[in-house]
């Protein structure tokens, strides 16, 4: 495996994007930083710019207004990068699949601009912080 990928697995810096979610998944992601779950012991950090990130955490069934922004952010992240799709809405639009303003799910949106994208799914509504951490670490261990 390439040395870039090896470096990414050790301490991935993640960038979080909300593409129109109810914020539950986002609150659970921020919960991962708090003392009870403390994800920084794995070296995982939330960064403020996609240019600094190794991985992308996406929540929300992609709304029409958020669609080009999500693609833009994906293009700005240096490759190789891993996309973690968190929550039922992002994995498969969840309960919003008949909405007129919904263009998701996330993997369809990203594969349209990059068919080789590496995508990992953490379903749940919302997934508990333990599930998010477990999903992220499991995905990294098999890459």
């Amino acid at each position, binding site marked *: 495996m390439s040395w870039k990928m090896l470096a990414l697995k050790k301490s991935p810096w993640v960038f979080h994007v909300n593409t129109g979610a109810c914020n539950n998944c986002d609150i659970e992601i921020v919960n991962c930083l708090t003392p009870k779950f403390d994800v920084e012991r794995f070296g995982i950090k939330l960064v403020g710019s996609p240019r600094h990130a190794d991985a992308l955490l996406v929540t929300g069934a992609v*709304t*029409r*207004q958020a*669609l*080009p*922004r999500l*693609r*833009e*952010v994906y*293009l*700005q992240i240096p490759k190789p990068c891993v996309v973690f799709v968190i929550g039922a809405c992002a994995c498969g639009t969840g309960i919003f699949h008949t909405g*007129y*303003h919904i*263009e998701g799910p996330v993997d369809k949106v990203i594969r*349209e*601009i990059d068919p080789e994208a590496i995508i990992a799914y953490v379903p749940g509504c919302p997934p508990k912080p333990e599930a998010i951490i477990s999903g992220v670490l499991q995905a990294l261990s098999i890459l």
Partner: protein
Amino acid sequence: MNQQELNNKLAQIKDRLIDIEQKASNRIFLLCEAQNNFDVNKFLFEDVGARFVIATGIDGEDCFEVLYHYSYDQTGCMITIKAFIRDREQPKIQSIAPFLPGAEWIEREIHDLFGIDFPGHPDMRRLILADDWPQGVYPLRKDTSRTKPPTSAFVPGKACGQLGRTIEGVESSREVKE
């Protein structure tokens, strides 16, 4: 005012209304035509002192309806003004935003979703539909097709940085470097 005094006060505006419906002791509906709507709203907000809650647009059977919901907090009574807009081709109703700034956003939203015009509104811009949603397609009307309009083509670099087009007449100055 207690509930009986409130009922008496509401009877003062009866000449502008089609009817007053009392569904329960604390649920009152005032039915009126679109042209009287402004006066009835002003009466409720300024004379009665009720608190504006929200407005609802409805595509009814034979006409559009705009419901203005008010809450009279001293008695917990919900007073709803039901304004009927009979003209289906060019529905319009006078905006109440000039004396009630809290209604600005909801009138913009009803305009986006139903196509109802609000003459007198200070700032009628698109509020909740996406930038590339086609003009003239009103999602909550009953006769709108259920097929989603296609999204605009993705142009890398155009999305985030340049989307200063969110406010009409404002250009963006920065190119997002790819």
